[in-house]
């Protein structure tokens, strides 16, 4: 242990701890800005570039950044000398002097780390230093990510996510000196880069330099269009995070309130993507069993994450035979809503509008993919994120926390616990295993918890004994881990039957459309615990036991993996090397 003093208080810390860790232990809050440490996910942004957390250390020539300075025996640290306070405040003032001051109408108003910091440090009235401001073109070239580099404070968090975690290397520092900004190389538009639209840059951006392309207005106007029958579906991960937007404790499941909210907002029907997740498992498990039985095109890679699909299309075009041909759950939902449901309710599919509430910004892009349509009708018309739904709730003046619980509508609202766990890394694989096991063995699976594939390690693998068949599975979350895994497969260093890949660290619960976690390391773990709790409390926990799913095949689709199912529920991939 290392012994030192912070603000005259003795503290002992393990080796390699930082001064910031020490201060935290003592309950001393040192403000930070660029710093990011999502412990469970092993994501750290420690570039020490913002210089907000500067502290005084006896004997040091300059102030030192608390976030990156490792503690040493006998260190004597003062966090609030007048020099440190002046430095901290001046640094934030300097950032503000090169930042638009349109807080009132900013996308991140009341949700901005820089704004909070300015308030905390008591920066009021006129800025001490003013001068030239940087201006760059806004990039709204993609359907997912809105980039306003004027708001960039060069904290490099997005770069850490994009380059170190996701290994996409789209966002990095360009230009130098005052003109330095985080952009794609040559300041290209995002849609011309290998960006997968995972939105992890948005998830960590402290300001509004990176936000989602906002579709709230379109959704309001379609809700109010009386000629349209608007159905909404909510992804599994949304309900485990939406409450955070309204000050509820992290990890609170708010399914019932969310359904009530969607009803109150005026959607004609409130359905559940969990239902479609069960449907996905039917098709995907069937595909897995076929590939394993034929011993062909292995491993099967899951394909429900659009960002991951982008990634493999951009980077591993020679492996495009591996992903499951299943559409992602919300796309399957859209196809079913505009066919089966339309027929059942006797509504012209042209009048049905499908809105998806997703934890994800890549889903916005996905819904615009041409092949994800049927009879020239897009499967999904609009995608809004968890955050956008929360903003609609606030705009409508609805008291979210006080809303009574309500149930999803039927027939597309019923789901099993297997559908629910799609929200967490490992969930799709676990759901697929529950069904595949029973289909392969024709036996009932009593212990449905596959604890050996749960967790937050970047790459996890397990061998599942299915009545003598040794099914080798792997799970990766975060595209950097995906890349490692794919390279291992390419180089024949590892062999698997099935692999689940989710682009976002933690899976969809950590998606780029979720409430900002503000660098709080516990958020992902708590959301994940809520997912598995919800699964545990479900009466049915296997997708193929979902009565509404059974009914859908009986009444409309016919065989699992059959002709109709293929027409509506499967898709193709194309190489788009960038």
């Amino acid at each position, binding site marked *: 242990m290392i012994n030192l003093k912070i603000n005259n208080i003795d503290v002992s810390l393990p080796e390699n701890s930082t001064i910031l860790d020490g201060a935290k232990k003592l309950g001393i809050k040192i403000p930070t800005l660029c710093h990011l440490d999502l412990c469970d996910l092993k994501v750290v942004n420690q570039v*020490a570039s913002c210089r907000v957390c500067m502290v005084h250390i006896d004997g040091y020539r300059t102030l030192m950044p608390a976030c990156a300075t490792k503690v040493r025996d006998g260190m004597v640290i003062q966090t609030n000398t007048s020099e440190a306070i002046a430095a901290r405040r001046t640094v934030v003032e300097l*950032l503000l002097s090169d930042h638009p001051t349109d807080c009132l109408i900013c996308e991140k108003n009341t949700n901005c780390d820089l704004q909070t910091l300015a308030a905390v440090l008591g920066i009021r009235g006129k800025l001490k230093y003013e001068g030239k401001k940087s201006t760059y073109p806004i990039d709204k070239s993609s359907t997912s990510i809105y980039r306003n580099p004027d708001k960039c404070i060069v904290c490099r968090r997005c770069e850490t996510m994009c380059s170190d975690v996701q290994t996409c290397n789209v966002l990095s520092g360009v230009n130098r000196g*005052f003109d330095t900004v985080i952009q794609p190389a040559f300041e290209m538009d995002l849609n011309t880069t290998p960006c997968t639209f995972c939105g992890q840059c948005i998830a960590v951006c402290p300001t509004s330099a990176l936000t989602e392309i906002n579709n709230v207005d379109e959704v309001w106007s379609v809700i109010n269009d009386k000629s349209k029958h608007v159905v909404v579906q909510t992804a599994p991960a949304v309900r485990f995070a939406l409450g955070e937007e309204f000050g509820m404790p992290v990890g609170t499941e708010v399914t019932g309130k969310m359904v009530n909210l969607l009803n109150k907002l005026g959607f004609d029907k409130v359905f559940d993507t969990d239902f479609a997740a069960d449907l996905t498992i039917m098709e995907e498990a069937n595909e897995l069993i076929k590939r394993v039985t034929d011993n062909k095109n292995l491993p099967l890679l899951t394909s429900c994450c659009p960002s991951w699909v982008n990634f493999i299309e951009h980077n591993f075009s020679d492996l495009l035979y591996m992903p499951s041909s299943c559409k992602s759950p919300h796309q399957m939902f859209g196809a079913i809503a505009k066919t089966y449901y339309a027929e059942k309710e006797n509504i012209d599919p042209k009048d049905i509008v499908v809105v998806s509430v997703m934890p994800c910004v890549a889903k916005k892009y996905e819904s615009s993919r041409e092949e994800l349509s049927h009879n020239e009708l897009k499967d999904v018309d609009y995608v809004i994120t968890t955050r956008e739904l929360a903003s609609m709730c606030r705009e409508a003046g609805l008291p979210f926390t006080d809303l009574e619980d309500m149930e999803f509508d039927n027939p597309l609202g019923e789901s099993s616990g297997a559908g629910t766990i799609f929200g967490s890394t490992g969930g799709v694989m676990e759901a697929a295993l529950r069904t595949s096991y029973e289909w392969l063995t024709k036996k009932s699976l009593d212990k449905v918890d596959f604890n050996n594939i749960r967790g937050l390690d970047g790459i996890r693998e397990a061998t599942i004994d299915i009545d003598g068949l040794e099914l080798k599975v792997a799970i990766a979350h975060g595209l950097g881990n995906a890349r490692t895994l794919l390279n291992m497969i390419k180089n024949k260093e590892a062999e698997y039957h099935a692999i689940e890949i989710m682009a976002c660290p933690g899976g969809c619960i950590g998606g780029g459309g979720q409430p900002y976690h503000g660098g709080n390391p516990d958020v992902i773990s708590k959301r994940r615990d809520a997912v598995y709790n919800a699964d545990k409390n479900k009466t049915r926990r296997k997708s193929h036991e979902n009565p509404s799913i059974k009914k859908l095949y009986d009444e409309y689709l016919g065989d699992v993996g059959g002709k109709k199912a293929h027409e509506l529920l499967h898709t193709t991939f194309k190489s788009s090397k960038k």
Partner: protein
Amino acid sequence: MNNSFKYNLLVCGGTGCTSSDSEIIISTFKEECKENNIDKEVKVTRTGCFGLCELGPIVIVNPGGYFYCRLEVKDVPSIVKEHLIGGNPIKDLIYKETIQDDKIIAFDETPFYAKQNKIALRNCGVIDPGEIDEYIEHDGYKALDTVLNSMTPDETIAVVKDSGLRGRGGGGFPAGLKWEFTKNNESSQKYVLCNADEGDPGAFMDRSILEGDPHSIIEAMTIAGYAIGASKGFVYVRAEYPIAVTRLQSAIDVAVETGMLGNNILKSGFNFELEIRLGAGAFVCGEETALIHSIEGERGEPSYKPPYPAESGLWNKPTLINNVETYANIPVIFNKGAKWFASIGTEKSKGTKVFALGGKIKHTGLIEIPMGTTLREVIFEIGGGIPNGRKFKAAQTGGPSGGCLPESLLDIKIDFDSLTSVGSMMGSGGLIVMDDSNCMVDIAKFFLEFTVDESCGKCTPCRVGTMRLYEMLQNISSGKAVIEDLDKLEALCHVVKSSSLCGLGQTAPNPILSTLQYFRDEYVAHIVDKKCPAGVCADLLTYTVIEDKCIGCTLCAKNCPVDAIEGSVKKPHIIDVDKCIKCGICVDKCKFDAITR
């Protein structure tokens, strides 16, 4: 010198002289000698830089040390005929400071050279950098042989430590300690780097050494490799130094061919490879972690230290990084002994330092002086003082990281610690002299403009802070500032110094702080009186004719590019201030000092 030659001509092949045709002068000398059948008697050697760059192209004729300067190609035939054949040096072409009472003295007896002590520059202007044999004749690779074949790595490091050599790149960190730290970090792979990313405006000692004595760097880096246990080295040199790059590369090739580099060097069993990496000329890449990132192919920006390169440097391996001038001292230290080296200089700064003299000084160029020489000696004796009868005002050391020192500090003994104690620094050895026609606010603005431009943009204080400092100086120099701004300026300087990530930002405010300390009245004059005392800041100047002095010669009016001056012949003229663009031509043209600004 090979005795079979009657004359040995040393022609400077440094960048400055090369750009004024020294290569053609060399070939013309060779042709002329051949034509006159004396080519067997005359050896023409292309050397490195002699230091007095403003006098280039320079040719020294030995024996005798005759110093021909500012030669043109057309002068060559007469030198061949009159001097080399006739035995009569041509006085008109010889540097006039070597002509004393009708006698010509050798160049090294002039004050410029006599006061110098060349250790790092020992071979520059002496040997042909393209000939390894000449290097070897001048004790080259002797130190390497001694080290590899008779010393242990620890003994080698002990010599460097005992010599007291401190890094010449700016920081002044004890070189031996750096070597020891790197050695003590165990790793199967380590690297030796040479920082040749010389970036201070006006400084060019590293370029000169690479151009004039590349083998000394190869030898020193190999010794360093042996000492710390590295088998691979890189020289990071800016692409703007094409001659240095070419000569270093040929020297590396020859060293490999002759067994001074590569496998089993000097039959010692030690292997060491050396490669050049080109930099794109970013000033910040002189910072060691930024340089390392640049070699790795990453964005050239510094990262937080620790870990220091000695622990985790290039590709996360223990890495020793020294600059060119530091390495250039190494072979001599081994040849002449640590004690000898430590006997030169001051208590805490041993040896010599190379300075690039520039600005308002008679002899601009490169000099090497023992640590402890005073600024006055450097400027007024070696440098020849201030030209055009003007008055000394300040000396700026340390480039954009340094400060401006006033006349009262001229007797300061130059070393690492003394310069730091008065708010400047040694830096890599830039020394710019200013006279009373220099405005100190303008000088501070010049250096800040440089750092604003060269900041990598990574940390806030440097990225935004230096820009705000620059803007405040702009306001002062254009008369828009109020006196309270000086406190704001100073406060921001202190934050940028205390909070920036690397040395670039931490020292960027020095030019402002030192001028505020020593020349505060000039700032006040700009702010309160709205006047630039030195007559430099255009926004604060008003050109007016002094009626009493003007004789109406019309010269000013004829030369004014915007017809802002009116007046009849023999009558005092008038300047229309609305039209005047403050170009200063009228002041330069007026022979009667009749125009003020």
